[in-house]
């Protein structure tokens, strides 16, 4: 009788390497997407509105303040000092690194030199108009973080400043 050479019994083995590769790839993907999709929180502190706070108000030198008026069409109008006697401006600029950022950086450097006291730096006053979007507020607050402005506040816009925006066509 002819002998069948079956040899040793072959174990049915499947190469799992590729499968494991794929599984780990997917794990990595899901791990990263779950942590990335978590939103971020930007902390904001507003000035106290109660009457007591008014007594604490300090007069600051005009040459230390810059006022940013947030208008429509993603534009900012800024001026240094007081509205009726601005030291500089009012000028219209854009958001972002080619718009307001170089101006702020320059002022942050300049102001302590003018006042002659490193403690007395720039004070930024942000005044969003009714025609600006929420995005604009977040953008400008983010800009404060980027240029690391020490003192900034969000205030209400005055009718005179609205007029100023209207004149530039930024209030529609």
């Amino acid at each position, binding site marked *: 009788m002819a002998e069948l050479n079956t040899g040793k019994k072959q174990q049915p*083995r499947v*190469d*799992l*390497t590729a*499968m*494991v590769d794929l*599984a*780990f790839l*997917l*794990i990595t993907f*899901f*791990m990263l*997407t*779950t942590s*990335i999709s*978590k*939103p*971020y*929180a*930007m*902390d*904001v*502190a*507003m*000035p*106290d*509105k*109660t009457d007591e706070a008014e007594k604490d108000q300090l007069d600051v030198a005009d040459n230390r303040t810059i006022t940013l008026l*947030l208008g429509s069409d993603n534009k900012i109008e800024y001026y240094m000092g007081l509205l009726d006697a601005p030291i500089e401006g009012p000028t219209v600029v854009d958001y*972002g*690194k080619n718009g307001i950022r170089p101006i702020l950086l320059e002022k942050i450097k300049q102001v302590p030199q003018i006042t002659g006291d490193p403690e007395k730096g720039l004070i930024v006053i942000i005044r*969003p*108009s*009714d*025609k*600006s*979007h*929420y*995005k*604009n*507020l*977040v*953008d400008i*607050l*983010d800009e404060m*973080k*980027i240029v690391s402005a020490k003192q900034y506040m969000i205030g209400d816009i005055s009718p005179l400043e609205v007029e100023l925006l209207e004149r530039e066509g930024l209030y529609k």
Partner: protein
Amino acid sequence: MGKIKVKRASTTIDMTAMCDVSFLLLTFFILTATARQPEPLPVDMPASTVQIKVPDTDLGTVTVGDGGKMFFGVTGPKVRVNMLNRMGEKYGLTFSEDEKQRFSLIDAFGVPLSRLKQLIAMDNAQRVDAGFQQGIPSDSTDNQLKEWIMAARLATAEENDKQMRIAIKGDANEDYPAIKKVIDILQDQSLNKFSLITNLRVAD
């Protein structure tokens, strides 16, 4: 001389166990990633460069979007029930245990109190349906949003013995007055510190 037998080790490794583990992990991640509930008011958040994550606990979120609609939500089922009790007391409404249980599972809602019972009775898919949730009234005559925030703060303080943090989640294209309204409500309660929820800015 005796022959030395060198046992040749096989180079293939048994991948079965590794495969098991990796698929187990994969299943876990897929499930946790998709288990999030649909939001009743989807908003497109503005981007910023801040990298601080939103806290998971003791947080009240005011969502503003779709032309000034206000939605409110607070974390923690216990806090939600406590908040509901307080609101019920204030407005003379009573809720059954079943309603409280169902309310404690709602992440965020945007209906006036008069329609709250109707919302609780709905199932999840109906709640998200457009048109039903039109926002919490926040006018000066009937400022329910203010009351909800107040109730949530008191509830968090009682249940968890912690100060509730408040976050505003606004749509990027929402007009500023709508956000201002929320900020004013917060400031009236001497809440001068709060968070704005943003996405991560990718470029620039």
